[in-house]
């Protein structure tokens, strides 16, 4: 059986491994929780590219830094001319003007949003507008008309969406071999949109996959995400192409572990559940495990349409347990970074809730962790 878990002391080494993987595969998919170091990894991956013979970057990346290329000028003095400024010095924008990017962004944006934009190429700034329907009394009659509200401020989510569309448009150009982006050998996409609702997550993921499938043989791709749904959709879309799938996590000693998930379908919540089961079996239960359990309960209850996550364990245990659980599970201060042992009676309670939950809902738990323990042993 092929080795499935790889340990790394530091991220740059991990970045090298990803580059090695991409010699064989077209895609590397990386699942990791927030705070694992995904963004730093994407940065290291990009920096690694510059270490080649030519010292020229070879990676077009989308991560937290990408959003920093755009900044708002809210026109505080007049409060009318609100614009998004572009950092024109970035290579990201090398084809912005000569390739008329706004024509390429607009069709993408209209899939996800209802606002429009104009790029002022002279001042490197973008202004947004939106059509609104207004009612007015005219000659004694109520009349509707459409008005354009210009220079508006868009919400954080809309802004993210816009920047994402800019990135997609540039990806398309790189894939099509446009001269301005012929330095691009890799796409590295780290968590496209931080606050996606589920519908958008699916739309974004499948649109992205469709685009990236065209990159085959031209540009290699790394995608990292903490968003399960997004991750799963991408996995399904590209599963027929040569790819590697990993679960990246940070170990207590600050080193990193990369776990292959190629053979088993990747389902985040069941992986977590088996981790919890493992914890209860070994008795090594930390306070943050409550948070993990709660998040699974929340997801399960929202899946079943319950208005309260308690209903997941309701009816199987007594009222007292339920209330106690609710109370304990509502804590937000348990940190995954500073694991604290649970008190003994809480451990007992935790075990009862978990087994009650697993009894009521028959999950198919993967054996990922057993592989892990075998490796460690």
């Amino acid at each position, binding site marked *: 059986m092929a080795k499935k878990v790889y340990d790394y002391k530091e991220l740059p080494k991990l970045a090298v491994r990803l580059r090695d993987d991409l010699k064989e595969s077209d895609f590397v998919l990386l699942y990791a929780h927030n705070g694992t170091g995904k963004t730093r990894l994407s940065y290291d991956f990009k920096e690694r590219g510059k270490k080649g013979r030519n010292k020229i970057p070879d990676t077009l990346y989308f991560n937290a830094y990408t959003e920093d290329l755009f900044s708002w000028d809210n026109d505080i003095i007049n409060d009318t001319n609100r614009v998004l400024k572009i950092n024109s010095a970035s290579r990201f924008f090398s084809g912005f003007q000569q390739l008329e990017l706004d*024509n390429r962004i607009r069709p993408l944006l209209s899939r996800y949003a209802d606002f429009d934009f104009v790029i002022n190429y002279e001042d490197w700034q973008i202004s947004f507008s939106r059509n609104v329907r207004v009612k007015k009394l005219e000659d004694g009659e109520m009349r509707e008309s459409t008005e354009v509200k210009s220079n508006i401020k868009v919400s954080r989510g809309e802004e993210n969406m816009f920047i994402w569309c800019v990135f997609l448009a540039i990806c398309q150009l790189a894939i099509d071999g446009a001269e301005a982006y012929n330095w691009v050998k890799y796409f590295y996409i780290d968590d496209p949109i931080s606050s996606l609702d589920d519908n958008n997550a699916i739309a974004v993921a499948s649109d992205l996959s469709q685009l990236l499938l065209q990159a085959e043989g031209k540009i290699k791709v790394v995608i990292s995400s903490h968003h399960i749904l997004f991750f799963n959709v991408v996995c399904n879309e590209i599963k027929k192409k040569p790819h590697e799938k990993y679960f990246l996590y940070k170990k207590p000693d600050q080193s990193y572990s990369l776990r292959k998930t190629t053979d088993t379908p990747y389902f985040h919540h069941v992986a977590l559940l088996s981790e919890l089961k493992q914890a209860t079996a070994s008795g090594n239960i930390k306070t943050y495990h409550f948070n993990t359990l709660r998040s699974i309960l929340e997801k399960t209850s929202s899946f079943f349409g319950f208005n309260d996550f308690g209903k997941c364990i309701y009816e199987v245990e007594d009222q007292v347990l339920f209330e106690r659980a609710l109370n304990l599970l509502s804590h937000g201060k348990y940190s995954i970074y500073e694991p604290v042992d649970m008190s003994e009676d809480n451990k007992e309670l935790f075990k009862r809730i978990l087994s009650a939950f697993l009894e009521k809902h028959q999950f198919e738990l993967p054996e990922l962790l057993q592989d892990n323990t075998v490796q460690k042993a």
Partner: protein
Amino acid sequence: MTALEQQQLGKTLWAIADDLRGSMNADDFRDYMLSFLFLRYLSDNYEQAAKKELGGDYPVLDVTDKRTPLAIWYEENAADVLEFEKQMRRKVHYVVEPQHLWTSISELARKQDEELLTVLQQGFKYIENESFESTFQGLFSEINLDSEKLGKNYTERNKRLCTIIQKIAEGIAKFSTNTDVLGDAYEYLIGQFAAGSGKKAGEFYTPQQLSTILSEIVTLDSQDPSLGKRKKIDKVLDFACGSGSLLLNVRRQLGAFGIGKIYGQEYNITTYNLARMNMLLHGVKDTEFAIHHGDSLANDWDILNEMNPAKKMEFDAIVANPPFSYRWEPNEVMAEDFRFKSYGLAPKSAADFAFLLHGFHFLSSNGTMAIILPHGVLFRGGAEERIRTKLLKDNNIDAVIGLPPNLFFSTGIPVCILVLKKCKKFDDVLFINASGHFEKGKRQNRLRDGKNGEPNDIQLIIDTYKGRPDKIERYARAVSMEEIAQNGYNLNISRYVNTSIDEEIVDLAEVNRQLVDIDKKITEARNRHNSFLRELGLGEI
């Protein structure tokens, strides 16, 4: 009717459209609105011709009688109907049944008649299939009167249509319309609706000011533009014609008899239908134009695929505003295509040059082509550089006109006009840098037309093209091929005609002397001030 009134009709109709469309997509509503206007035009035109044809037999109705005169005539002269329709076909090229006439339909709307939707549907079908001798198949194919968008069920849809038609009828009734006015209102609406959409990749409604520049240029004498307008153009082509307004603008330049035949091609089916209606609405007879629904890049129009060189289609004037930086999928077969073979293929990311070469292939040896393209075509490298170089070396590029930013709805990309010729008299390239000559608008900039004493940006471009001066400071210059070659066949306009005003030369010694002088004055003033303070027994500064 004055120009002001014309504009008002457009505005009135637009207000009705904007009000009634409610939550309906502007593009969807446009198609209903414009079809109704078209029906109104056909009806009016037909009734006038019928009146003339029947003379004294044309029934005169009482003011209170809401029937149409033609319906009465049909009732009373059933036996002659066939002969009458035959005659009408000969005269106006089409037939409209009395019950489908606008007056009948709008009367149904006024009465909120339940039958309106059904009658309207029959009317559209009749016009499509039987009215015209040459086929107008599918003219209303995209007009779905049974659409959910109009209402949930027949009754609701019928009610909605009644309202729309009634409002249009009332709106128009305030104006004394002749066909020209209705045509202009139609175009005005197309422009207004275009402002509300524009979500499609790179497709933009050409502003009338730009249309005028293009059509003026292509109607000038091809060998020597300074000789002025040509008397007649045999064939004119727009291979990305949209709703046909550029073609109509060319026709306007030369008058109704100045053009042999108008050819247009359009990929979007609804726009293609609008173009056909637009032609008829402007009084272009169905025999005077041919509009093809298809893909210019794939060249799927039979008449442009004639293999026999003797029968090759050639056009004296070609105008186009193709979609900007359109993404296309060229393949190896395409590389062998007769239009592209000797130039190479435009890159996948931008079909601009593919469009240009398509049109250019069909340009006659004494024809002129004017095309609006994004600035990128002037300086982008790779395949586009090779195509550009070949065109320049072959002396096919006559003029490059740089335009101000933001002339189009919803795109700020800078655009230019390229003028191409197969054989040209001058061996240099005329550069006009008009990028600084415009009136700034809130959402969109405007080329001024010289009204009310303002400068005339449009005429300046045309006159400069006509006169072809060697040089106009910061505006235009005829540039030799050697200089262009030295610039690596890069046509970036600012390399040849720089609009920036040179910075004043600063004499540093002089500035220094002045500064020292000012310092001296400051010290003097302070000393004087302090002496006063001292006298007053106050602290010095």
